[in-house]
């Protein structure tokens, strides 16, 4: 018993509890920071696509993280890019909606 008492002393239990708490909180913090950087990533991707759309060469060439749809599917899109082309003496318009994969 004396051996057991000397092995599982109260300090050890408290230390383990504290370390577990710190670990959980750290994981939560890192998770939040990851989300922040994801938002930042989306924002910079959106800015890039904004410029690409303005220049009229919006495409998913070389961008493996985005998907371009031709209609609004859900509200979590990155950007909406309109495209108007001449079709004979008429105008035809379409839109590109960019989502993250």
């Amino acid at each position, binding site marked *: 018993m004396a051996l057991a008492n000397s092995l599982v002393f109260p300090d050890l239990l408290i230390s383990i509890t504290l370390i577990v708490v710190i670990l959980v909180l750290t994981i939560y913090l890192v998770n939040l920071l990851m989300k922040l950087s994801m938002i930042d990533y989306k924002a910079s991707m959106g800015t890039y696509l904004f410029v690409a759309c303005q220049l009229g060469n919006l495409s998913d060439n070389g961008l493996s993280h985005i998907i371009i749809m031709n209609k609004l599917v859900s509200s979590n899109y990155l950007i909406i890019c309109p495209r*108007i082309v001449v079709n004979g003496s008429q105008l035809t*318009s379409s839109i590109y909606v960019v989502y993250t994969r």
Partner: protein
Amino acid sequence: MIYKSLLPILIILLIMIVITTYLMHYVSTETAKAIILENKYLLSINTFRQLNETLPQVLQNRACMLIVNPINYTCNSIAIDMTNSVNNALSTISNKTNNLVIYRVVNYTVYGSGNITIYRVSINAFIQSSNIERTITVSYPFNLCYYSQLVREISNSLGDGITINANNITDAIWKINNGLANKVAYHGQSRIILYYTGVFSMIKRTHNYTVYSGSINYVLSISPNINTCNETTEITGEFHATVIINAFVNNTYYFSINGAVSNN
């Protein structure tokens, strides 16, 4: 004691978590707002920009339609057709984006000014809190409105019959040629050629005058003097002509004329 030294770390960790949670919430709502605003801005500005780029080509195509058929397809038809086309394109964008931005054509006009035709359309883009109004102006390097009017005027003037008074038949032929040349002698940026052919027959003769009646078939060929679209207007028709010779013409019961006059 090991856990006493861990307490400050724990407290700092908790503070960091509170700050990060707040930051997360703030950044994600602001990002969502920014993305919506950016998209509305992008949608309206880019739509205007693309209309600016595409409308000259549409005007070009419409201009060719007018040059082929200037009598039925007028300047006003261009204005209406182009505005309809713009409206269709804009409503498609509005529909496909669940009315994120609603466009409305406020005003439109087509007019000829000097040597050019101008199409102007004002579009209002309604975004929830504000609206952006933009006017798009495109031009075509030829006065289509004047051209359309010119062709209609010449065509109308040829529809009326003519009566020629002359001293002899040679004089009559010269006067018909002259009269037709006057009808096409419009200045302007158009090449006009009128080919005509006609047959006259004597219908009345007295001792001091002879009357011939005939019909003149014509082909009126008009094209703009710029080659933006290689189209020519061709109008064919027929009009009645009466020739009165102020003399007794002895043995000419029939005569025919043909020729071509141009505005150059």
